[in-house]
């Protein structure tokens, strides 16, 4: 396990920088424009994440060789650029939506590039063209759906705690991936968690500002990437990955008809508590599973004839 002091430094630096950048760019003493707020959120989460990664010093390779290289060096920078473009008011929403859609379709293939899943080989894990199409389309649909529903929730509920809730989900995903056997992959969630937390904390001191989803693109793509890495390059189960990815959607529960009468702040607290509880329960289960002894399975034994024949 990495040095706990290093982890604290990385997360502390990421959170502090994200908070500072958000306050600097939004400038609370002025009335900020929606575009400015969107760009500020994306920038604060992006630079916070980058600084946290720099502190963690993950072993990266160029050209990218494995999923972690592609996550840090390709996926997150592109997500950052798209979210910055999304903050430009003159760009049509159709163009931004298309860019996000194309990007969402590209994330899984980029992360899985060159792996046994996408390479035609004799491996039992190699996907047939039909399987490949179904799985990649399925993952794209999941990403687009959750991204879209959270964006809708943010614009509808206009609460301030949704970034916290997503950060908690990312934290649970990182912890679960660590307990699924990939320490290096799980730890990459920490800078994102810290950047989201830092920016969200800073936003609490701002006066009421226009609704923004500038943080959402990086957050949801980061969560998706960590879970894809855990599922396909570690021992995270499909069920765990799917549930963790859908956990932020629990934020919709307080928007159901019976709860709409509650004040926004209460609904915000309720959604955060729901998401945090679900995420931490899943992380706890992963911990218990990793701590359980491995059950012994009967070994496959070659016949005595194989041995006597000297494998002729």
């Amino acid at each position, binding site marked *: 396990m990495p040095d706990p002091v290093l982890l604290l430094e990385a997360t502390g630096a990421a959170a502090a920088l994200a908070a500072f950048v958000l306050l600097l760019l939004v400038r609370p003493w002025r009335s900020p424009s929606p575009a400015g707020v969107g760009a500020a959120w994306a920038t604060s989460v992006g630079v916070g994440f980058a600084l946290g990664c720099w502190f963690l010093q993950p*072993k990266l390779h160029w050209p990218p*060789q*494995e999923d972690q290289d592609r996550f840090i060096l390709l996926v997150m920078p592109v997500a950052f650029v798209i979210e910055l473009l999304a903050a430009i008011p003159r760009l049509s929403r159709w163009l931004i939506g298309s860019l996000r859609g194309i990007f969402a379709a590209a994330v899984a293939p980029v992360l899985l590039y060159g792996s046994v899943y996408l390479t035609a080989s004799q*491996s039992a894990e190699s996907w047939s063209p039909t399987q490949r199409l179904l799985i990649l389309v399925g993952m794209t649909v999941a990403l687009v759906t959750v991204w879209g529903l959270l964006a809708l929730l943010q614009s509808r509920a206009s609460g301030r705690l949704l970034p916290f809730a997503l950060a908690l989900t990312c934290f649970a995903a990182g912890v679960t991936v660590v307990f699924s056997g990939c*320490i290096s992959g799980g730890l990459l969630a920490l800078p994102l968690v810290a950047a989201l937390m830092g920016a969200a904390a800073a936003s609490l001191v701002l006066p009421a500002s226009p609704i923004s989803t500038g943080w959402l693109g990086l957050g949801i793509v980061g969560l998706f990437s960590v879970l894809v890495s855990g599922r396909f390059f570690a021992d995270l189960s499909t069920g765990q990955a799917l549930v963790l990815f859908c956990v932020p959607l629990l934020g919709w529960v307080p928007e159901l008809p019976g709860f709409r009468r509650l004040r926004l702040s209460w609904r915000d607290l309720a959604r955060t508590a729901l998401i945090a509880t679900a995420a931490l329960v899943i992380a706890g289960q992963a911990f218990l599973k990793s701590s359980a002894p491995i059950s012994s399975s009967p070994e496959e034994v070659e016949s005595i004839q194989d041995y006597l024949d000297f494998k*002729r």
Partner: protein
Amino acid sequence: MRAKGFMCGVLFVVLTGVSAPALAADNYVIDAMHSAVTFKISHMGLSWVHGRFNSFSGSFVVDANNPAASSFELNIKPESVDTGQAKRDEHLRLADFFNVKQFPTLSFKSTSVKTAENGLEVTGDLTLHGTTKPVTFTLQGGRKAEFPKGVQRTGYTTELSIKRSAFGMDKMLEALGDEVFIAISFQGIKK
């Protein structure tokens, strides 16, 4: 007539003599049952963790008269890594180490073979973790045996060390050492 017969005899000897080296190249398939690819690596500089790969295959050509024509090839499935601890093996297979879903093969293919003082000096390309680098080692052995009757065998042994970070396998170096000591002992069945 006698001179003609003598010339034919000389021609036969010369031809068979000339063609003898070509016939001396023997092709073998590695008999995994009587071979082993093992390694040891330092754990925090305190002790050695020993392991092996349970699944590998390969072939080699040995030309006793022309060692440069010899060649060796070995393909290892890193997924078969076995250190005697199931949880550790599981961790070794995942992205922190071998990342077998991204890099499913570990292979060696010789590029040159020459006679050394105590065996054969083999140079070749070792591909580990998706990175290919040249390595050189000395193979000792080459004794031949027939076992069971009608099956010709020969075998070699070597030891080498590599730095795993040179192959991009550079995570958690503080826990598991960078230098890996590898021992390979293999036996081939003549085709």
